[in-house]
């Protein structure tokens, strides 16, 4: 159960306002897609959620607790690239999550705990469909497989919140569809809240329960630095879907392609 509350968040750099007046509450077990044109600050917003940067004003809380100043295991993340470690095999990439969380000074586990962690990692790898690739290095995996691996790696530590930064932007449409199904399955099986940044609107509307759009309202050159992007649309797809199931729909003949 994890409720992310964003309260009047601003992000300003010295001469530039990037984000202003961002406020929303995800609710528990939500899947929020954040969309917007490039340069609208959606990735900056994700960096705030990851504690990679700090908000200039406003607060972000997870289940009522303010974000710690550093990345922590309660927030998992998958990036578009470089999410997995090139020097570890697929299995080691998943295992390393447990080793880093529970391991010693050197990030290693031993004996029974290591065997348990290994089994858990193998199971997770199987779960994302990478059982046969467990001894391969990321460079030997396709883009889609790498992102599956990244999801497995992020989820092995059971984060409360999963952050996705354009995770499927580099994949071809077929691969993307498969991994969408995987992501939805993983989200339903857990109680985690997902926040996904994407510039792909169809992707946002297929996956999310809620789509939030960031954009700059003032875009004239002389205004650009002084005004940042803010929330321009906030669509609760869950409510729409509930509404649609309540109102009996007239059968509509499928249009011929």
């Amino acid at each position, binding site marked *: 159960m994890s409720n992310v509350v964003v309260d009047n968040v601003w992000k300003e750099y010295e001469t530039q306002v990037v984000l202003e007046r961002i406020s929303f509450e995800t609710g528990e077990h939500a899947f929020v897609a954040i969309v917007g044109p490039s340069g609208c600050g959606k990735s900056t917003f994700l960096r705030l959620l990851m504690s*990679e940067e700090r908000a200039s004003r406003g607060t972000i809380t997870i289940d009522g607790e303010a974000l710690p100043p550093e*990345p922590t*295991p309660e927030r998992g993340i998958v990036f578009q690239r470089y999410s997995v470690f*090139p020097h570890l095999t697929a299995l080691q990439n998943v295992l390393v999550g447990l080793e880093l969380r529970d391991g010693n000074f050197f*990030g290693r586990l031993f004996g029974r705990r290591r065997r348990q962690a290994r089994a858990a990692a193998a199971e997770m790898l199987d779960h994302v469909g990478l059982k046969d690739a467990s001894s391969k290095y990321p460079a030997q995996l396709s883009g889609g497989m790498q992102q599956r691996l990244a999801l497995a790696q992020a989820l092995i530590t059971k984060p409360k919140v999963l952050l996705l930064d354009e995770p499927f932007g580099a994949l071809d449409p077929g691969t993307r569809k498969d991994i969408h199904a995987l992501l939805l399955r993983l989200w339903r099986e857990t109680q985690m809240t997902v926040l996904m940044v994407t510039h792909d609107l169809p992707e946002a509307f297929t996956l999310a329960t809620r789509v939030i759009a960031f954009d700059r309202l003032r875009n004239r050159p002389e205004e650009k630095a002084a005004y940042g992007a803010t929330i321009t649309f906030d669509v609760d797809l869950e409510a729409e879907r509930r509404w649609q199931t309540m109102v009996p729909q007239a059968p509509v003949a499928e249009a011929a392609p």
Partner: protein
Amino acid sequence: MASRLINLRPNRRVAIALATLPFILSILIYLVFSAARLAENPNDKVLPAPSSFVETFERYVLEPDVRTGDYLLWSDTLASLYRLGSGVAIATLVALVFGIGLGLVPVVGSVFSAFVTAVAMVPPLAVLPILFIALGLGETAKIALIAIGIGPVIMRDLALRVAEIPREQLIKAQSLGASTWQIVWRIVLPQVLPRLIDSVRLVMGQAWLFLIAAEAIAAQSGLGYRIFLMRRYLSMDVILPYVFWITLLAVASDLLLRLLRTWAFPWARGETKAP
């Protein structure tokens, strides 16, 4: 047949033949000039005949030296390799520790970055007299020269490599709960080790330079010592085989480092390798 030169690729056998060509050619040129000089003056010492190399070989490799009882080539090689190995090992270890610190930990970078850059600019041979004065004429000064000469170069290279590790990986590791030390052991160190080997391969030439310079100035043994000793007698019949032997050692060490890299870091095989 391709019409452009850039598309003309020799097949394997031709490539091998082409590769040996410059070697054979330079040996031939040597033989021709050597024969010409010896025809004019049978006592010429500058370009000795191949037969005198064989004599030298027998004298230095198979027979003990009259004065010391050592087999000279072997004792020289051992002395030199000990100095070279110690110097390179010390430089590598120190460079690894500081390189990772400089590249990964901003506080360490703030303290040492400018200092290391400045120290790396000091010409090591200019420091040699200081080393001899401070550390004496023994092994320490020679090892120190090699370490001081190549350490900062490796260190700066490693710091850059560490800084090149994508920020995503460091964030990712933190999001999995890793401490700074765990990030060093599990993420940074394994990823820079192959780069470290590349780096060492590139500075090995310099390491030999510093070794031979130190041995030329003050030593009782060593490959560089022997070459510079023999220079007094114009003994090209000793100097040339020694140079050849040093080259062979350098090539072998390069090959070993390259094999070590491929064997120990299978994940890094696809990466661009040092020439």
